[in-house]
């Protein structure tokens, strides 16, 4: 049963990655006017100083030239993508897309993983408490605030935070990953500088998603409290802590974790926008810059890497799920 699930999940992941890769190939072909061709043509026409772009144009023609049958183009594209050769940037020619993405990826992963894990943990406990009958009354006052937070997209909350903490009170930097003047290196002041800069972007993701997790968990916890085993635990005189943690929270966590798997894509897309708002040097900012310049290979590369990352994370969560739920083990 577990093996079957694993195989199914792996297949789904491969299908997702494959779909994303094929989309990147097909979309320009399907568009009324191949935007890549147009962009390259424009460059060769206007670019007196850009003669060195010829190499790029020729490489593109060699791979996607109209003289070659579509199937052949597709095959070589998929082969390259599978070996993580995502082409070269148009704007920063001759930089390779893989290198650009590689440089931005650690920033994104660091921001995304820490803030998601913090938000998930906080939101889950808060949501469970909001639903618990014996919880302090004061907690109830949090509920409307939690709901407002859950309603907002991350970047909008980011704008609010910048406005308050960086613009009005000037407590924290307006954006960026570190001070322009700082010299990168493994030193305390530089690490602190990075943390200072990531505080607001992380806070926007954490605050905006804490509400989502809390509300989801509260709903689950209400359902779980109606289950027979909760009434039975009470009828057996089990302690409050035991009933809250081992019975209530423990069972409500199951759908919550499934929700985490389903939400990763949404979180990643949201954090791309947060990076844009804070000019944080991750994939989001790279993507934004590429869009500004119609740097198609970078756009496709960033989206592809993000899709792969999300698919892998989802698979991970799915694989961990049986540790929590004995019913799907074996």
């Amino acid at each position, binding site marked *: 049963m577990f093996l079957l699930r694993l195989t199914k999940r792996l297949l789904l992941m491969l299908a997702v990655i494959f779909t994303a890769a094929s989309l990147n190939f097909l979309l320009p072909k399907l568009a009324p006017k191949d935007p890549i061709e147009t962009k390259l043509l424009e460059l060769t026409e206007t670019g007196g100083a850009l003669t060195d772009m010829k190499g790029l144009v020729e490489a593109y023609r060699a791979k996607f030239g109209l003289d070659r049958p579509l199937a052949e183009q597709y095959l070589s594209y998929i082969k390259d993508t599978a070996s993580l050769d995502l082409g070269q940037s148009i704007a920063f020619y001759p930089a390779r897309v893989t290198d650009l993405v590689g440089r931005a990826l650690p920033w994104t992963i660091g921001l995304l993983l820490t803030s998601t894990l913090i938000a998930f943990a906080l939101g889950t406990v808060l949501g469970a408490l909001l639903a618990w009958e014996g919880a302090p009354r004061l907690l109830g006052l949090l509920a409307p605030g939690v709901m407002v937070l859950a309603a907002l997209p991350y970047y909008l909350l980011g704008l609010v935070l910048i406005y308050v903490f960086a613009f009005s009170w000037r407590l924290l930097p307006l954006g960026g990953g570190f001070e322009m003047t700082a010299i990168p290196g493994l030193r305390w002041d530089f690490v602190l500088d990075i943390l200072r800069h990531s505080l607001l972007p992380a806070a926007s993701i954490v605050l905006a998603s804490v509400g989502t997790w809390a509300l989801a968990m509260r709903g689950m916890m209400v359902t779980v409290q109606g289950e*027979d085993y909760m009434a039975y635990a009470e009828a057996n005189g089990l302690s409050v802590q035991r009933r809250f943690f081992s019975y209530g929270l423990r069972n409500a966590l199951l759908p919550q974790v499934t929700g985490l798997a389903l939400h990763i894509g949404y979180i990643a897309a949201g954090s791309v926008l947060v990076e844009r708002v804070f000019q944080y040097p991750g994939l989001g900012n790279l993507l934004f810059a590429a869009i500004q310049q119609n740097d198609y290979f970078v756009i496709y590369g960033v989206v592809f890497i993000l899709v792969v990352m999300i698919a892998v994370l989802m698979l991970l969560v799915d694989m961990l799920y049986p540790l929590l739920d*004995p019913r799907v083990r074996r």
Partner: protein
Amino acid sequence: MSVLEIDNLHVGYELAAGTLSAVRDLSLSLAAGERLGLVGESGSGKTTTALAVMGLLRAPGRVLGGQIRLDGQDLVGLDDRAFAALRLARVAYVPQGAMNALNPVLRVSDSITHALRDHGAPADANRIADLLAQVGLGADVARRFPHELSGGMKQRVCIAIAISLGPRLIIADEPTSALDVVTQKQVMATLRQAQDRLGSAMILIGHDMGLMAQCVDRVAVMRDGLLVEEGPVRRVFHAPEAPYTAELIRSVPVIGQDRRAGTAAPAAAADLLRFDGVEMRYGKSLFGPPPAPALHKLDLVLPDAPRILSIVGQSGSGKTTIGSIALGLLAPSAGRVLWRGQPLAATPPQTFRREVQAVFQDPYSTFNPFYRVAHALSVPLRRFGLATGDAARALMEESCRAVGLDPSLLDRFAHQLSGGQRQRLMVARALMLRPRLLVADEPVSMVDASMRAAILDLLVDLRDRYGISVLYITHDLATAWRVGDDILVLERGHVVEQGDPDQVLRAPSHQYTRLLLDSIPMPDPDRPWSTAA
């Protein structure tokens, strides 16, 4: 000295509109080792009483008056902490839905450990194995999760937890209502043995008079929050004082009493419905072995004469599958189904549809909540081209009267009707269409006991007055015997026995049929469950 004494207990729900009494003037007492049956239909106050004893009433429910004394100590007004300490240690509870009472993510050993530890008692592997052994379970069960246990095993685990701290009182709330009749008998035997060993008092809550007659020393009957009758079990069953008690006892069908058989079928009758080697397998699995068939090569003949064929089986026997195939809602995996000599697939759908109708188990979902109930009756009339407009209305009203319903009910919504009324309406619908065959799948299992006999009598009426054949599908041998002209006993997709109910049920030749018969609790304390469990 009494273990439990309840004096003039008054429990009510304090609502904005006023106080709603759930239990009034209730006085009971229970000695050590004694078993009391607390009987009543839904809303009688029996469960509320149990909750009050355990301090589990939820707001707005509250004890408004009276006393509940456990070993002389008044429990009314104890705080949450005191009640939590008292539960399990002094008053243990065996839950109704043992199916879902155990935390699904915990091993059995953990569930037991939590119960012991939270009351300050030591818990180790030996203690757990010992408790499991006392309820007839092996030590290996400790490592299992609830979903790896059968319903009977789960209920035994709950009993093991209930006796773990040697309580003075055990409250068992319909502990076997989710179990089949064979397992019910075994689990009740385990519960009684465990209670005897401890010498504690027990309250058995339920509505099954048969079970009460077999299991308790004294019976208390409740209705609408009031105690109707109380006394030793023999006295109550042999000479009930309250008419309501008598009615409850009478409503339990007993094999050998009140058979409603029809006339014999003419020998030369043609077939109405015929199953030839019908097999059914659900689902296909890509990996692993193919699923076990729900039905094995089943042969079945219903002659073209008004007859009732009772199909008896426990859950998982394939009885509902037979009904769905006969209705044409499900195509068999193998074998042939013939309707009046023609393969079912070749019968024109419109004729067949009209000729075979159904009454389903769940009276709550058979009516579309969006429409008034008349919708369910008028649609087939229009679709089959039988009547429209005033003519249709007249037909509908006439058939309502034929089943003893006020025709004005037609203009209500389903949620405004009781379960019994809805099932009658379904019978009325069938009657109005004059089908050749009616498939009645557990038509009374979700209806209050007092209504059951009347609805079964309607099925008999369909046969005798309107010449409609009935496929009566049930888990209950006694009602199968009562209305059936023929009976067929199913076990896991196999027919173990079939023929004349008198012969099959009074002189069963198959071991499984005998086991089923032995497991039925008779509503008579003098006809005890045979000791073989």
